[in-house]
């Protein structure tokens, strides 16, 4: 299955569904994605297609990128991603994928980078409890014990500690497609997705539970 598109998170709003209930939705612009290259087991050792998204000025693209796009007969893309598949892909270089790959009511996964939060403490980063605010506790948002004494003599791996939070790739699974607007390449997806408005995301048909 090569049902994957590169897209852009545009923002959130709400719509009314057929039961007249309010549904929170994220608007995602997905595709159109030209296929830049087809990889097969014979030629590359694995099956995949390389898809592009967004326009890039011919002038700004490197010679290599220009040549690569020319070979497929498309314009150089701003973002390029590779989509692996088990079987040899049906698409040919130069094909254009768009939102018609999906249908309303279908479930999709969205992959994106979360917003960066900078260096954060354990309460925000791992939702630990923290201490009492008053009565002279002097222990408010601190980390608490990080282990035992002579045995084991070291701090265990994966001990939750303050550090950099966010700006990591995250996948939200099984989001329902509320509406598709093919003329504008838009998908309205129920619920939130990672990243800030304007961030690039990957939209694919759900790999679990359809």
């Amino acid at each position, binding site marked *: 299955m090569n049902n994957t598109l590169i897209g852009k998170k545009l923002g959130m709003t709400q719509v*009314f569904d057929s039961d007249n209930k309010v549904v929170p939705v994220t608007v995602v612009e997905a595709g159109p994605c030209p296929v830049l290259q087809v990889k097969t087991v014979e030629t590359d050792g694995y099956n995949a297609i390389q898809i592009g998204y967004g326009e890039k000025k011919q002038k700004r693209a490197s010679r290599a990128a220009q040549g690569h796009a020319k070979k497929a007969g498309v314009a150089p893309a701003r973002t390029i991603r590779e989509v692996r598949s088990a079987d040899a892909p049906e698409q040919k270089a130069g094909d254009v994928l768009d939102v018609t790959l999906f249908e309303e009511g279908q479930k999709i996964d969205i992959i994106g980078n979360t917003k960066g939060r900078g260096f954060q403490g354990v309460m925000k980063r791992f939702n630990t409890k923290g201490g009492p605010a008053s009565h002279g506790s002097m222990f408010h948002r601190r980390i608490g014990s990080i282990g035992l004494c002579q045995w084991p003599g070291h701090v265990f791996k994966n001990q939750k500690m303050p550090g950099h939070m966010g700006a990591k790739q995250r996948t939200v699974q099984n989001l329902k497609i509320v509406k598709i607007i093919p003329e504008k390449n*838009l998908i309205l997806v129920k619920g939130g997705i990672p990243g800030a408005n304007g961030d690039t995301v990957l939209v694919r048909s759900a790999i679990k539970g359809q």
Partner: protein
Amino acid sequence: MNQDLISELTKDYIKADTPPFKVGDGVKVHTRVVEGGKERIQIFAGIVISRRGSGVNETFTVRRISYGEGVEKVFPVNSPLISKIEIEKESKVMRARMYYLRGLVGKKAMQVKEKRLAKGKH
């Protein structure tokens, strides 16, 4: 730019026939309720104590005293379930949110509004 596009998308959901009610107005909200396959109209009458949001996200809160107990209901302005909004009384209110009504008990809660109403009608 993206926000413009999003408000464009939700344009279809915005009702054109919503009356221009304000905070402080006495309203009757007619809502369609489906019970056991049958549809009927339920009326919630009270005072609009807040209006918030914009576009399709806009909601309003109606407060009434029911059997001596304060009841508040939040409605989306553009909900298809609202069949009609009737403006019963208009009033002159000095604030955007009438949350102070929550602190008033019994008859006083209603009286305060009537006073304001009288003022506005002069």
